[in-house]
């Protein structure tokens, strides 16, 4: 049960973002820019970064939601599964492995991102902007994961919930729908 009263029809992050709208707006804007804006990384690759961070923070709601988003964008579910298991042997490019390594280090601590990790990414062809965005996406998902877990929000166990949520964040993105979320009951 959540630590504070939240709308029951909006589990996970959605109820929190509706609970306080003035802080939710810049968080949503930031996410939309980073995950859906113009980038040399595909949307699927960026969702994999969100997925690995959420998986390492053991935040079930975010891990399930972004795994589903990555699966839908990549058109298969093997890559996200293997990235979470061991990204070094997952079927992604060397550049992506180096960026996932930076994301995994950022999840631990900003200070853990070493010169070696950056050099590895640069040698594999990563640009400054790709490195920047990887660190910021990883940092942003630490915010989300800690927000969701710190207030003990509900993570539904029904896979159909994440199918619907994944389709929403892939199809419509991260901005608040006009008028918010209607309570179906």
């Amino acid at each position, binding site marked *: 049960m959540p630590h504070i009263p939240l709308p029951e029809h909006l589990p996970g992050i959605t109820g929190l973002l509706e609970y306080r709208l003035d802080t939710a707006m810049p968080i949503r804007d930031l996410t939309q820019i980073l995950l859906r804006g113009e980038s040399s990384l595909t949307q699927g690759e960026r969702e994999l970064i969100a997925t690995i961070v959420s998986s390492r923070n053991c935040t079930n709601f975010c891990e399930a939601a972004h795994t589903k988003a990555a699966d839908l964008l990549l058109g298969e579910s093997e890559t996200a599964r293997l990235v979470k298991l061991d990204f070094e042997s997952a079927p992604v490019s060397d550049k992506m492995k180096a960026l996932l390594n930076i994301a995994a280090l950022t999840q631990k601590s900003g200070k853990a991102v070493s010169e070696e990790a950056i050099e590895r990414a640069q040698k594999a062809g990563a640009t400054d902007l790709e490195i920047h965005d990887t660190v910021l996406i990883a940092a942003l998902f630490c915010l989300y994961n800690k927000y969701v*877990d710190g207030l003990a929000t509900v993570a539904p166990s029904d896979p159909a919930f994440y199918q619907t949520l994944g389709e929403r964040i892939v199809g419509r993105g991260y901005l608040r729908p006009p008028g918010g979320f209607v309570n179906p009951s």
Partner: protein
Amino acid sequence: MPHITLPEGLAGIRSLAAYRPDTGAALYALAEALLRGPESSFSQAEAELIATFTSSQNECTFCTCSHAAAARYLFNQDKSMVDAVIENYETAPISKKMKALLAIAKCVQQDARTVTDELVANARLVGATDRQIHDTVLIAATFCMFNRYVDGLATVTPLGLEAYEPMGKRMATLGYVPPKPIK
């Protein structure tokens, strides 16, 4: 030296906001709403104290020093309390409520799954509202992002404390205004 080429003459988060102004604008808007906005359940000084505490737990020098400077400015004659909180919040001269909330912030910083019902009940017992519990978790989570962003890209961190004093005054009085983009 920063891990990527950032605009020269700027430090910490400002160098990153100047490097990528679109994400910078959202990040500054979040800091402004969270720490200074009319919807906050805390005074500006209290919100800055939670930001300072979280940054010190993450050992992020730039964010700790800059937010501590803002908090010292805002607490004015009680400013020594800011350093006492960085040293040890449990023995610092702060209210029972703030201690209970910092205990929650500390759990969020370490592993947010460890925020127990008992910690939250204890905070309520000493007067914390739902909104203050929420805002504490969100401030701590937000600074876990800022700290990782600033340190993960190895931004420039001024070493002398005197560099942070004007920064803190600016944050406390003018608020979170993003730097002009540098071309």
